[in-house]
């Protein structure tokens, strides 16, 4: 049985269990409402969930632009210039360990409980890993490659476009994967804490009235969002013709490692 079939089988079994276990009474509906009652609950309040989803998506999108755009830019600068690197990297690295969510109440004081405070919080939350991995990606570029490019007469801008950027793409994308996921976490968590709109707010509100089906309907939406994000990133990776060993854009459909064809065939 191939890995893909096995994966599908696992997901399928989980769905069956989600429906079956609460229905047979093995798990009380309060702890885990069956899949069908969750879907019905979501469907009945479709307008409310649709509005919440729009708010959350908007916040995620804006935060993503801030976190990833600024993260890549700052990472590129810090990674390529030695002085800012020595100055900033230790600070950023130790900052990374601080649970930033403790700052969120302060953000609501400064920016209110609307979207602005969520965007600010999620942007900073996703910014750090994106910046760190971009900086690492730029730093780990093999100096031999740059020397070789120089020996072929590449100018500074040619080295940037033809060597540094393509060489950094894999690390930057893995940074985006972490950074983007943290942006979603940041938005949903901050909505759950102090808010008046968004999916996190709905989950939190229905939880206080012990309405499990509606809580899980929100959870499903967040799940769908992260799956969509992951798929989008995979699409970008293929478009960017990612060159990691054993895998290449366009051929990356099967994500298991391709055996490298070492034997000459011609």
């Amino acid at each position, binding site marked *: 049985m191939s890995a893909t079939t096995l994966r599908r089988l696992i997901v399928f079994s989980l769905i069956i269990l989600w429906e079956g276990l609460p229905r047979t009474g093995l798990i009380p509906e309060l702890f885990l409402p069956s899949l069908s009652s969750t879907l019905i609950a979501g469907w009945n309040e479709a307008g409310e969930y649709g509005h919440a989803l729009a708010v959350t998506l908007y916040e995620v999108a804006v935060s993503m632009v801030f976190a990833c755009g600024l993260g890549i830019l700052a990472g590129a600068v810090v990674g390529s210039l030695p002085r800012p690197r020595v100055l900033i990297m230790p600070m950023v690295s130790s900052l990374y360990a601080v649970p930033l969510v403790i700052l969120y109440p302060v953000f609501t004081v400064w920016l209110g409980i609307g979207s602005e405070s969520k965007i600010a919080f999620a942007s900073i939350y996703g910014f750090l890993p994106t910046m760190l991995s971009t900086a690492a990606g730029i730093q780990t570029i*093999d100096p*031999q*490659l740059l*020397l*070789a*490019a*120089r*020996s*072929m*007469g*590449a100018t500074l801008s*040619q080295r940037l476009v*033809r*060597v540094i950027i*393509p*060489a950094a*793409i894999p690390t930057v994308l893995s940074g985006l994967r972490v950074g983007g996921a943290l942006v979603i976490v940041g938005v949903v968590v901050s909505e759950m804490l102090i808010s008046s709109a968004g999916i996190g707010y709905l989950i939190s509100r229905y939880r206080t009235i012990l309405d499990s089906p509606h809580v899980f309907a929100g959870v499903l939406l967040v799940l769908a969002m992260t799956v969509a994000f992951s798929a989008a990133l995979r699409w970008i990776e293929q478009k960017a*013709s990612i*060159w990691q*060993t*054993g895998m*290449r854009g366009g051929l990356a459909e099967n994500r298991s490692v391709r055996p*490298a*064809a*070492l034997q*000459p*065939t*011609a």
Partner: protein
Amino acid sequence: MQPLANITPLKPAGAVEVRNVGQVFTTSTQDVVALDDVSLEVKPGRFVVLVGPSGCGKSTLLMMMAGLRQQTSGAVLINGAPIPKPDPNRVGVVFQEASLFPWLTAEENVEFPLALRGTPKAERRAKAQDALKLVGLDGFGKRHPHELSGGMKQRVSIARGLVQDPPVLLMDEPFAALDEQTRMTMGDELLRIWAATGKTVVFVTHSLTEAVYLADEVVVMSARPGRIVDRLTVSLPRPRTYDMLSGDVFGGLRDRIWRHIRKSA
């Protein structure tokens, strides 16, 4: 057979001249003299190998010939003209294994120096095909470096060094990362390519056997400060064969180099 039909006209081999070159590295605590009054002349079409203990400045000297580094004093001339910055039309450089771009195919790697100059796609492709054919990699153009063996990667590097038909080819320990068997094969391959193109080759290596096997002339350098301590003409006939490795001439030359290196290391 015209080996490089699309790279015609073949430029004649070039001369390399190193005149009283000195190199001083300034560190915060002291000045380190890396090269001290080095003079060397390589006639067109010759195969010259630089050997010496680690840190003798042989790679530094090669980087100067490539225009990648400027000497503190003296002059480095390629065909009589100084080389203030890299010029792939005059000098091709082959580095150690790691210098192919992993995100490009073999073909695209070979085309890279042409692409930098805005050569039209069709012309680029044709030249790259020729260069790959020359190094025995016909049909491997679409492979990525990770799909090639170590020896094949170095063939691609050589093709890339030759694609602009430079009069001089510089090689900085190109086979150092290869296993011994591949290394021997690549040595023969390089001599074949050299015979086909008639380029001037300056080759840096740590291997004494490789040095004697490949060279017309071996230049021996001493440890810091780097000086030329001996120049040996290898009179063995060409083509070189494996049998020569066990002969007296070969052994005598290798011993002489080894004595110099042991003394200065």
